[in-house]
């Protein structure tokens, strides 16, 4: 409009001043009459005729599924999950009970395909049952740490000011302590059990999520659409959870897959040190009991070790795949 002749503008302005505001007939807006759409919104017309792009979520899924590493990770994790579910069916007995001659090597006796340990316990039964505790601790600790971390991080990042200062101090208290030492202390104070180990891992893993969420919220709260949401009279909770959080999710999802892997490693490390639940077999505790015999019966440490390595690797591959699929910096040019 700025290129219009000022002389014309005067005419327009004068005309407008004379004409009183009168209710003009509303342009026909029924879908049966498509004539106006060309006239009033040619931009809209050209858009609707062009092919509709795939939505964000579906495009991300496509990127994820075209990544062989991510597919391998997902497949292996699915296998571990299935094993965790069917372990009590395959081996209904307690995997900690002595069932055969000790120190049977893998393949020596067809009843014990992966051999037996120094007390005559079935190694295969141990590994299959061990997947249950590893997954339980990994997933539950991550879910707890994620929930609390996202809550703290979003509140701190969204409100800023003294709330942010207070919460960041709290995060820093946890981050200045060496996390594994804190974990050992927490488990040692409480009685070691699957529940306390899970809670302790959640306690030491939430600050990372909180920091990440806070950083995302600080960036996103300055965006125009958040201002628009405020101008519509939305409350703080609605803006945090409906407007900002879905936009902050991609890096949080990526981190969470790595968190599951870290939690599994921590649980194994605790069990290795004898701080795990003594009544439940876990991969870490199997390595722990086999470590003194590593020169004579190395398979006792190697087999549960391989289980840990592949599960953690699978989770990391999933994390990388998710990062490629969800990270806007990489996904822009795909």
């Amino acid at each position, binding site marked *: 409009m700025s290129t219009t002749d000022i002389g014309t503008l005067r005419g*327009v302005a004068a005309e*407008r001043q004379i004409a009183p*505001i009168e*209710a003009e007939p509303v342009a026909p807006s029924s879908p049966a009459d498509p004539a106006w759409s060309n006239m009033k919104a040619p*931009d*809209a017309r050209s*858009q609707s005729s062009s092919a509709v792009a795939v939505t964000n979520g579906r495009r991300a899924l496509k990127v994820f599924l075209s990544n062989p590493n991510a597919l391998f990770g997902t497949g292996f994790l699915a296998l571990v999950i299935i094993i965790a579910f069917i372990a009590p069916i395959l081996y209904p007995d307690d995997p900690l009970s002595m069932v055969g001659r000790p120190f049977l090597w893998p393949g020596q006796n067809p009843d014990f395909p992966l051999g037996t340990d120094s007390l005559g316990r079935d190694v295969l039964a141990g590994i299959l049952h061990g997947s249950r505790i590893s997954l339980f601790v990994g997933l539950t600790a991550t879910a707890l740490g994620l929930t609390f971390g996202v809550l703290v991080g979003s509140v701190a990042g969204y409100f800023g000011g003294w709330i942010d200062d207070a919460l960041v101090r709290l995060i820093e208290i946890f981050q200045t302590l060496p996390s594994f030492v804190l974990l050992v202390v927490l488990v040692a104070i409480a009685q070691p059990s699957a529940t306390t180990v899970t809670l302790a891992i959640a306690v030491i893993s939430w600050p990372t999520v909180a920091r990440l969420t806070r950083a995302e919220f600080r960036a996103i709260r300055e965006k125009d659409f958040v201002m628009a949401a405020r101008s519509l009279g939305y409350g703080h909770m609605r803006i945090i959870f409906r407007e900002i959080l879905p936009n902050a999710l991609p890096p949080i999802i990526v981190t969470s897959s790595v968190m599951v892997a870290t939690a599994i490693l921590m649980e194994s490390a605790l069990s290795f040190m004898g701080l795990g639940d003594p009544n439940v077999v876990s991969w870490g505790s199997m390595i722990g009991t086999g470590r003194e015999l590593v020169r004579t019966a190395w398979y006792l440490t190697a087999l549960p070790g391989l289980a840990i390595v592949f599960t953690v690797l699978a989770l990391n591959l999933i994390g990388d795949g998710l990062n490629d699929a969800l990270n806007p910096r990489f996904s822009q040019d795909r």
Partner: protein
Amino acid sequence: MAPLLQVDNLTIRFPRAEPVRDLSFDIGQGETLAIVGESGSGKSLTALALMQLLPRAAKVASGRIAFGGRDLLKLDAREMRHLRGRDIAMIFQEPMTSLNPVMTIGRQIAEVLKVHERLSGRAASERAVELLKLVRIPAPEKRVDDYPHQLSGGMRQRVMIAIAVACKPKLLIADEPTTALDVTIQAQVLDLLDTLRRELQMAVVLITHDLGVVAQWADKVVVMYAGRKVEQALPGDLFNNPLHPYTRGLLAASPRLKNDFHYRDGALSEIPGSIVSAAGEAGCPFRPRCAQARASCGHHVPQLTVPAPDRLVACPFTSPIKAVPHAAALSL
């Protein structure tokens, strides 16, 4: 009729500056008020002050904003939140970034209806389709499920308008609604705003730096400079007979002043210098750039005077209206 919105002596203060000073204006029901001025003149801050959404550092230092008989500055956060989006709505400059990128436009429209009108999910999504139809988006039944990135800039601004008018607000603040759009779409969007204003009996505060927009769509114009109102007029009077030297400069700087003007015909006239800092300047804020500045201009800020009905001007050296042949002043 009492004005719908009356702003009296509004002053907005940052710790080290006062970007809006002593600003007063009013707007009646169903009226369009245009606020014009260059970047930095305090237009957008005024809009944010009306919504009570000023940045943290800024405070309304003094003044009164009466909306429908209530002083907005005295409302608490909760009451103000109920007013926002329902009685006063706002459209922003950037349609590309003002929509939530991960929510379909239908859900974004439905959201505001759920919050303010307490509609159920189903009723809200039906209304969303109607609203898309109202802002002339073709095939609204299909478009509701689109994400913002699937729409063009003009379409997105239409969606923003649909969200803004969803609850039939009494006042719509449009902060440079067409600046980010190309020229053909600009006219359509402004036409749409004007039609909706009539249909819904809304008052519109149109913030712009485009004089063409002012001429075509405004009922009343406020010219701002460095946070102050320097002139107020009906658009016809403003274009035929600009009084303040700044307004004259703005009009002279518009392209195609003459018919068939081409850039080879000569340079456009310009206002020398740039907008002065609103902080700590004695006298008339326009004095350093004004061709008619006199020594007395530095003494005190010129008061608004009423040279004619429906007019206000903040310059003591405007000759009586009849005596100034405006065409000569603009060398037309």
